[in-house]
């Protein structure tokens, strides 16, 4: 499978202390480990099992995912922005890979 591509949509600017919505999407098959191939063999599980958002190095939001999360997982959440800075987003794959994305936000 092609390398998963993370996509993040969030405002470029916010007022100090404003709560913004961050929408994230990553392309991933999220193979549940329950399905069988045509020979009846179980297709091994391979999902993104975690996501984490950091703002200026501090963790602000985290989730743990299980196989019941749909393929190409979409998620939106909220974060309060006290100052200008950089958001770092990281998705962790079952195989240990980490897919990262960064977004800057300005106060204005």
């Amino acid at each position, binding site marked *: 499978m092609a390398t998963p591509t993370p996509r993040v949509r969030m405002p470029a600017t916010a007022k100090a202390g404003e709560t913004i919505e961050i929408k994230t999407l990553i392309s991933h098959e999220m193979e549940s480990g*329950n399905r069988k191939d045509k020979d009846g063999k179980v297709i091994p599980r391979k999902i993104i099992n975690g996501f984490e958002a950091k703002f200026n190095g501090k963790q602000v939001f985290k*989730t743990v995912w*299980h196989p019941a999360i749909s393929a190409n997982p979409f998620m939106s*959440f909220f974060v309060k922005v006290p100052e200008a800075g950089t958001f770092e987003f990281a998705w962790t794959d079952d195989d240990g890979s980490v897919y990262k994305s960064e977004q800057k936000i300005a106060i204005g």
Partner: protein
Amino acid sequence: MSELQRTSNRRDFVIAAGACALTLTSAAVGPRAEEKAPLLDALPEAKAAGATESWETAINVLTGDAKVVDGRIILELPEIAENGNVVPMTVMVPSAMTANDFVRSLRIYSTGNLRPLIATFRFTPDSGKAVVSARIRLAKSQDIVALAELGDGTFLRRTKNVKVTIGGCGG
């Protein structure tokens, strides 16, 4: 294979594989041995929060003696989901999200899937709002349970039924 299928992530798998090798000679202890392995203590999400048990057990283990209040959580799910592979879900937990009064975590349980735990979301007072949206897989028509842990250690709980026309997760 069933023990291996039940394991909830790669690290679990490695631990379980190791435990199987160790317990071959003591079949009476059997598959539960790996659950007592100290390494799993580092994986509360995989164990106590119910990646493998029934959803009732998972919730009981997590809440213990704490107070559980029904309601308050707003759980938005379609009444009828045509495609169980992609069911949109939005969960809102009303909270001021201050240092004293905030939502610590939110767990979503399925009552009809193979594994009860769907996802865990962790918030901080910096989250501003305890609101998340995601898309989930549902194997069949069932109740979805949202369980929120508040900063003071109490829990909120909300259940909603979803009718699924074509189930997800299958194969």
